[in-house]
């Protein structure tokens, strides 16, 4: 039997039993769609987390004052001991490490930002020129803080997109003056809109030079020091250097916490990737169920079509031809089901994307490949038994029964 005829023959069977065909297509489709949709959710979650970390800047090492560790009876609290502050000199000393590319010390506070009669409560960030590169932020207009001696800040600032829009409306903000507390700053740059990033909205900040912020908030202590390692490989040596430099500067005391987003990110990435695989696998079980349905229907078909199979054998069909006919039917069903499922999964993915625009839902390539393959494989696998039974049918017995 020619392949084209085999296809046509199987098509005629499927066309002749439409409700049965529709049922199997539905089952197969649901299975494939489930795998696609579920893995798209998992992959979306993974990419979301990765992007969130990525927007913090790559190769980033963050230093926090104080050390989070659990000891006997919280001695720090009992003895009234507070962790030693991180200072600008600490931050500048970190540049001695050969693994460190940039250092951005950070002071954070809240201030009343005023332009004329308009006023707005806003986060105020004091930092240095290197901050924008470390955090990988973009400017919409103008320049970032000028580089220069961090101990002497000029009265300039860079504002977030929302702040600029709220305070100036449609007017250009660049070059204008604003007041924070009792100090005046000239706006030299406007940040590009970036949105929420790990709970911190960079559209609603005002960035001023570190020295100005220290004066404004009357503090020497740094909130954080952001350090950019020279490369991904340099993150670990950089961490070691930072801890050692600060230990020496703090009289042998290890009183800072060093976080590298790299390790956290890798862990999240691994967990979410595994999770996606697992839930995809669970969804694939529905495909196996669909496979069993195929087997059931095929077994019924062998009984229902006993006479036809007997006739085909009498007309000279070999066992291989009969088997091929059944497998062709199963594969056609699987292909049809997979196509329906992929389409439905894609629709589901688009719907999810509409509902949660922030999460990049996308079925990973392996799911798009594995789902149809699994569908075909289960269909073929579960057709082996019915096909063999059909091929082994005795034509005389099959034809004699009415």
């Amino acid at each position: 039997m020619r392949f084209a005829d085999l296809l046509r023959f199987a098509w005629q069977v499927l066309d002749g039993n439409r409700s049965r065909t529709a049922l199997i297509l539905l089952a197969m489709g649901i299975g494939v769609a489930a795998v696609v949709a579920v893995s798209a959710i998992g992959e979306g979650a993974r990419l979301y987390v990765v992007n969130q970390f990525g927007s913090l800047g790559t190769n980033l090492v963050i230093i926090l004052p104080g050390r989070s560790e659990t000891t006997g009876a919280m001695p720090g609290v009992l003895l009234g001991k507070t962790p030693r502050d991180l200072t600008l000199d600490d931050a500048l000393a970190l540049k001695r490490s050969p693994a460190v590319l940039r250092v951005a010390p950070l002071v954070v506070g809240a201030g009343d930002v005023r332009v004329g009669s308009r006023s707005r409560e806003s986060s105020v960030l004091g930092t240095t020129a290197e901050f924008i590169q470390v955090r990988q932020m973009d400017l919409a207009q103008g320049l970032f803080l000028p580089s220069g001696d961090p101990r002497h800040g000029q009265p300039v600032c860079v504002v977030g997109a929302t702040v600029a829009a709220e305070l100036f409306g449609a007017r250009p903000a660049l070059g204008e003056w604003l007041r924070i507390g009792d100090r005046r700053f000239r706006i030299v740059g406007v940040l590009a809109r970036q949105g929420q990033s790990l709970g911190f909205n960079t559209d609603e900040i005002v960035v001023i030079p570190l020295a100005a912020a220290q004066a404004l908030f009357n503090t020497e202590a740094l909130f954080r020091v952001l350090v950019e390692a020279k490369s991904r490989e340099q993150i670990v040596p950089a961490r070691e250097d930072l801890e050692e430099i600060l230990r020496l500067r703090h009289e042998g005391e290890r009183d800072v916490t060093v976080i590298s987003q790299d390790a956290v990110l890798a862990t999240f990435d691994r967990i979410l990737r595994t999770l996606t695989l697992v839930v995809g696998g669970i969804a694939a079980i529905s495909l196996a169920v669909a496979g069993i349905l195929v087997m059931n229907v095929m077994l019924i078909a062998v009984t229902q079509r006993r006479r036809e199979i007997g006739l085909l054998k009498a007309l000279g069909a070999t066992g291989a031809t009969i088997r091929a006919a059944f497998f062709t039917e199963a594969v056609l069903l699987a292909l049809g089901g997979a196509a329906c499922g992929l389409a439905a999964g894609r629709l589901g993915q688009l719907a999810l994307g509409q509902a949660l625009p922030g999460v990049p839902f996308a079925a990973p390539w392996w799911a798009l490949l594995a789902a149809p393959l699994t569908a075909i494989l289960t269909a073929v696998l579960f057709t082996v038994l019915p096909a063999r039974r059909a091929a082994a049918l005795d034509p005389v017995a099959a034809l004699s029964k009415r």
Partner: protein
Amino acid sequence: MIRLSGIERVDRDGGEEVHALRGVDLAIGRAEYLSIMGPSGSGKSTLLNVLGLLDRPSAGRYLLDGRDVTGLGDDELARVRRETIGFVFQFFHLVPRLSAAQNVELPMVLAGIAAEERQRRLARLLADYGLAERAGHRPDQLSGGQCQRVAIARAMAMAPRLILADEPTGNLDRHTGQEVMKVLERVHHDGGTVIVVTHDPEIGARAQRRIRMVDGEIAEDRRSDGG
């Protein structure tokens, strides 16, 4: 064309052995028209199934066109059936979802004949058996006589040398039965070997050679000279 010697066929029905055929010797020449009659259970259908290579004899030898087909494998038997033998059944056994034309085409499809060649042969078969106008109808839209004509056209699709008909008129009224027999007899006139199993004496009497089976043996083998 056909030479059977010492053909036995033992069926197991539960624990009991049933001798369907007991040492049948039979020689059938080319272009013979032969009827096999006999009461139910006499083995006439079994004999036809053995002749048609649908059943294997338990013992004995079967030469078809001088070739021993007794020991052939299933696939080889299927090939011989496809190329040499055409079957006509009592219940027509048409595939219900296929049109008359598609039913007639089926053996050629199974034989892997190219589509253009099939169409050519199909057109001639449909014309020969007066089915051209009914080509697109499905079996449930055809009368019994038309169904059997479709079945005969299907049997002739591969131009076999041997036509085996098992009670071809058993499911038809007398008049339609006679017409179907005339179609079969035309195949015989065109040089085919036709073997008809029937329990209807009137149908059986039409053949030139008449075999009567009793208890799995040939009880009578008569020829008339006229036909």
